[in-house]
Structures are given as C-alpha cells and as structure tokens.
C-alpha cells in the first residue's frame, strides 16, 4: 500500500514537471548565436521623426566585425522592430550598454524616450547614457574604424575598470528617469564626439534638468561633481601654474541648515594628492593653496550654472528634504535652489612629494 502511494506520488511529480514544459515557452528561446546583441544605440530626432542607429558586433571567424544599422520611424520600438524584421537574427537589446543622444535631441527633451525604456524594460535600466555633439552618422562612421576590440571600445570608455576617468560623468537610464521625476535630483551626462587619434573625445558633460539638456560642464567641473557625489576622483592630474598633482583619494562631508527659508550647505572635500611636476620650487603651502583656489573657482562656476539652469546636478536638495514639506519640495528648483547658500572648503593634503625629496 505504501509503495503504491509512493508510486502515485512519483507519477504526480513527473506529470507536474511535464506540465511545466508548455508553461515555459522554451520554443521561443533563441540561442546566443541567433541573436544580434547591439551594444550602442544612437538616437536622433529630426523633424519629429526618430532616427535610430544600432551598432551590432558581428562575430565571425577570427575577428568581430561591427555592423551599423539605421532605421527611421515614429517610435523607437517601431524602428527596432523594423530593423529586427529585416535582420537574419533577432535583435536583443538586453546587452545594450550605451545610448547616445544627438545633442539637438537632448536639448529638445529625452522624456518620452527614457520613459518608454523604463516602461518596456527591454533595455536594462543600467544602460549608460551619453550625448553626442556631432551628427550620429558621422560619429558611427568615424568610430567604426576602431573596431579591433570586438566592438566594445565604446563601453570600455565608460567602464570603471577600464577606460573611465573621473573627468567623465556617468549616468544611466534610471538616473535620467529619476531626474525627470524627482524634485531635488538632476544628473549630468557625458558629452562625447569621435576623436582623431583616440576613439572618443570627451567634451565635458551636459546638465540634464527634468530630462532636458540645459547646459554643460567642462571636464574639470565634472571632476568636482564626481568628487562631491563621493565617487572617487582618483588619478586626476591637475595642472596649475606652478605644479601638477595627482589626486589619490577624496572624501566629502556635508553639513546643511535651513534658516528663514534659505538653505545653507557647508561642504568639506578632503583631497589627498601627490606631487608630480613642479615649475621652480613652490612651497607646499603654495601648492595647497593653488589647488584649493582652482577647485574653489570650479565649484563656484558649477553652482552658478546650477542656479542659472535650475538643475540640481549636485543633488543638494536631497539634504533639505527633511526641512521642507512636499509642496515646498515641488518648488525646490525654482524657489530654493537659486537662493542656496553654498560654502565649500577644499582641504588638500600633500601626501607625498613623489620619489624626489622635497628640499
């Protein structure tokens, strides 16, 4: 009797496992070699018509060729679908690593596109975004001459463990989406164009306010933004009149108060630097002073741009969330940000003077 019920149980288990097969829809699975894995998507909008450029690595024997496919249409999904129909393999956007917006389009507003990416989820929310300040066609044509590294050069540029530098902003789709929906948090995204000797030329970064490009930052300012946000500013070489230093590490502390409706923010950014190059023999005190002065001026310029564009890329509003009501927060960008009183102190420590002893 016991073995009979045992057998029945086994049969039930086997049957239920068989039932899972039709539920899985495994016949729709496509093997990796039957999928096209675009890694870069360029989007432009001209006269109300979207133009999408996909850069697809094509694995062949030996090397990887890069294929650039273009399509036009009224929505992004429509274009991708059209391209997929015409391709011999299925386009799988899950491996997309970088979305490039033409600068004209970015100025017009990325809202709809970013929203549709977040909605459909066929593109990972972690995809990096960047702005291309030349026409997409010429950009892709130029970078296609550098396709030695199986087509991943463009992402290596943005990858922390590869070619990323602290002067390059980093933002992903979800961060832009957050900027569109948050009252107090905007982002900066890198601006690039094709280079001549190098694949890409960094042109600083764009200030994105509520999903629109409203201004831009220089690479030096971007570095401050990264340091302020706490991402490491390591490795950056700072050129001054008298010396060049390398920033080894940075740490940031913020203090905030709200007095009579005016937000005050005091920040302290500690930098540890090492001396690389000097002209003449400036004193350490002198160098420290110059570093602070240089960074201070950049910081002031960022704050100025923030106030002018009403885009809170340093997310200073985040610190005052507890001081304001939700209705007040809604007007952070218009009412409070322009009145923000910002003080920053750069504390520079020359950790070592390089391999030469300082006399």
């Amino acid at each position, binding site marked *: 009797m016991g073995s009979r019920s045992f057998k029945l149980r086994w049969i039930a288990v086997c049957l239920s496992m068989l039932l899972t097969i039709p539920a899985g829809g495994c016949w729709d*699975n496509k093997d990796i070699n039957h999928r096209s894995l675009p890694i870069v998507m360029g989007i432009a909008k001209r006269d109300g018509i979207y133009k999408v450029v996909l850069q697809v690595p094509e694995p062949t024997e030996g090397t990887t060729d890069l294929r650039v496919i273009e399509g036009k249409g009224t929505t992004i999904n429509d274009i991708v679908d059209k391209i997929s129909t015409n391709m011999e393999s299925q386009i799988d956007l899950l491996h997309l690593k970088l979305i490039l917006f033409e600068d004209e389009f970015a100025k017009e507003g990325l809202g709809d596109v970013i929203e549709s990416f977040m909605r459909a989820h066929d593109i990972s929310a972690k995809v990096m975004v960047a702005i291309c300040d030349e026409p997409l066609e010429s950009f892709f044509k130029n970078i296609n001459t550098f396709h030695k590294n199986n087509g991943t050069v463009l992402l290596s540029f943005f990858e922390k463990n590869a070619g990323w530098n602290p002067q390059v902003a980093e933002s992903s789709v979800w961060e832009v989406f957050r900027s569109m929906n948050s009252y107090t948090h905007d982002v900066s995204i890198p601006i690039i164009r094709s280079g001549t000797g190098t694949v890409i030329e960094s042109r600083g970064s764009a200030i994105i306010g509520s999903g629109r490009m409203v201004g831009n930052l220089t690479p030096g300012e971007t570095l401050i933004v990264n340091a302020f946000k706490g991402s490491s500013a390591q490795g950056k070489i700072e050129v001054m009149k008298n010396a060049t230093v390398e920033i080894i590490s940075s740490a940031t502390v913020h203090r905030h108060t709200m007095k009579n409706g005016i937000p005050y923010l005091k920040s302290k950014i500690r930098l540890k630097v090492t001396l690389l190059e000097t002209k003449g023999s400036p004193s350490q005190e002198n160098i420290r002073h110059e570093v602070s002065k240089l960074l201070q001026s950049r910081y002031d310029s960022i704050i100025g741009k923030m106030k002018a564009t009403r885009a809170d890329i340093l997310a200073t509003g985040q610190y005052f969330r507890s001081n304001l009501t939700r209705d007040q927060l809604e007007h952070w960008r218009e009412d409070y940000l322009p009145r923000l009183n910002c003080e920053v102190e750069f504390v520079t420590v020359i950790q070592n003077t390089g391999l030469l002893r300082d006399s």
Partner: protein
Amino acid sequence: MTILQALKHRASLNADIRFQKMTLSGLEVELTGLSSLIDFNASLLHIQQQVHQDTNTGLPLESVIGNLGPIVAEPTEHQLMSSMLAGHLILWFERIDAYVLVAPVSRPLSRTIEPPTTENVLRGSISAFVEDIDTNIGLIRKHVASPSLHVHSYLLGTIQKKRIVLLCNDNVVDVRLRDAIVAMLEKNKEMNIQNLQQLSTALGFSKWSLVTKFNTSELPQEAETALSKGKVVLFMDRMPFAIILPSLMWDMFAVENDRSFPVIFMYAIRFLRVFGVLINILIPGLYVALVSVNPDVLRIELALTIAKSRIDVPYPSLVETLLLLVILELILEASIRLPKSIGPTLTMVGGIILGQAVVSAKLVSNLLIIILAATTIANSAVVGFQNSVTIRLFKYLLVVLSAIYGVMGLLAGLFLVCSYMAGVTSFGIPYMHLMKPRGEPNG
C-alpha cells in the same frame, strides 16, 4: 545406504563430488565431499592422524567419532548436499550408519590481501578487503581491537545460502539502526541475496532511490571509522568490500584518509570536493541557460566570444550538450568495461580525437568541450563511484530545466535536488545527517 546412493547418483551430474572408502581403526568409512572445495589428500591425512591419536589414548569409539565433528542427527539427502556445498567433508560410518561432518582442509580459493583496486590511499593502510568473509572480519578485528566490537552472522536464502555478517561497535552504535537492520535480516531469512540490489530489497529500501543507500569501501580503515561513528558495517560473502549503513551525504566529501594531512589541507581538500560536485551539477546547465535563455547575464565580451564559438553550430544548445554528455557517459562506461591494456587507447580516441573532430566538424562549440571536460573531471572528485553516479544523473535534470527556464530553472533544479536529498532517509536517519557516535552531543 539409500542417502549415500542418492548422493552417488548426483555424482554423475557433478563431476567434482568425490567418494572415497577408507578404514579408520578398523571401521569401514566412506568419505564424500566436493573435490573443488576440499584438499582431499591433506584432509584424509588429517583425519587419520586424529583418529590414530584418539584410539591410542584409549577413547571409546563414540568419543573418537564425536571428536571428528558433529554427527548429523536426522540426515536427509538435501541436508547433506547443502553441507557438502558449504564445504564440509561427510564421513559415513557404515557399521553404525552415522554421518559426521568434518571440517576439512580447504583449497585456497581467495586472493591474498592486496592493495585496493577501486580506491586509492595516499597515506594510510593500503590493505583492502578480499572475497573471503572471514579474512575481512579479521582485518576489521586487527583495526578495531576492542571488546565492544560485535560480530553477528546471518545465513540468508533458501536455494543458495549467503552469509552476511553484521559488525557494530556496541558502545557507540545507533541502537535503533542496529536493531532495525537485524530485524530486517531476520525477517527476510528466506530471501536469496546475490547482489546489492537484492540486499537493498531485503533491508526494505525503496527500489527507486536515486541516492545510494550503501556506502561501500574496500578499506578496513574506512570501515573502522564508520564503526567508531556508530554506523553498522555489513559483509557479504564473496563481496570484497564493506557495506556501510547508513550512507550519508557527507560520505560523498570525506574519507578517513583526509585525516592523514594537516587539518587545513583536509578542509581544503574537502572544500574542493564540494566545489567539484557543484561544478559538475551546475556547469552544463549553466551553459545551456546562458546560451539559450539568459545571454543577458553574461558580460558582453563573453557573450560575443560564446556567440563566436557557436557560429555554424546547427543544434540548439540543449541538443548539443546532451549529445556530448552522452558521448562522455559512453566513454566512462566503456573505460570500465575495457581491459586495462586497451583503456588508454580509448581515452585517447575519446578525449583527443573525438573532442577535436567534433569541434572542427562544427557539431558543438569549443566552449562546450571545455565545459564538459571540466564536468567530467569534477565528477571524479567525489568520494566513491556510487556517489558519482547519483551526481551524474542529477546533472541531466538541471540541464533540461535550464533549457526551459534558464537560470531560474537551474536554481529550481538545484532546489529540487536539495529537497530530494533532504527527504531521503534510511532506517530513520536523514541523508543529510552528520553521524555522531552515540552519547556524544549533537551539533
């Protein structure tokens, strides 16, 4: 007279039944036994010497006969025949019509003690069990010189008697386990047992168990450890290994020989085995899942490399993987069958030629070859062949589930395997249990 005549009639069917007449201190005696089991000349000499000595000391005839061996009380043909098959020499005293069973000088029909053939010992005792059950018990006695080691013998079967010996250390043994095994053996006295499957039935295990219920070892050292942990060791006549009950999951990863190394290395080696099992179970499934269902999990560089290696491969990854897995199973199976001298040839043909050819013929991707090589190597890291078979089987479940559900299916499969193993018990001891000697606190 009739019984002996009947036996003589049998002799025409069995050429090795031998009859011999002789006189022992004036008595007409007829001896019979299997010449294939008994060294007749030595036995005769032995009997003559004993009788001669006994009569010289003036013992009465009854005592002389009694000293030779037990007298069969109510002899039947069947009974005498089975005594003969068990290797006894039968003496028939014509005058008093009595049958006496004599322990003869046996022919040496067992190997001498040799190093193990299915297990390897790096540092430790290298003598292994042999076919002769008494030698095996002797080996254990040598290793466990303890008065609490108890040996119980059982004869199972009706047509063919099989001797099964149960050993346990009464000080530490799990009493419920021992009693349950004894009860099962007593209950199934009539069962004929020639192999482990039948033994498993006799002990009341399910036929459909996917994990082995017997841990087997050729090494007295292993049996000794099992005994000291409170397990029960069974010996079956003509089986050159100890059958250790219960078999637990940890037996897959630990052997006593590990303790011959410093403790850090012992843990490192055991971790390596656990890792090997995980690789073996997971990797083929992971390949199928990542290639067919969830390529998005891969880094783009790796995705492109895999895509590159799969250009022109005609089959979906599931078929590809199963194809090569089956070939590997065949190689494994064939290398067990082949004589040792041809084995290397097969390995070469299977491993190098087939592997290379199958890639250049574009039937499978070369990444898969790497994965399957890793799988096969990892498969052998497990202790005991009986355990590696289990793992080999579970691998297929994971491959199929991965093909349907991708990484999620892989995880679900792993969960299924774990829950199955957690559900297996033998004599009330869960498979996942860590055996502790009785009286020692658990955990």
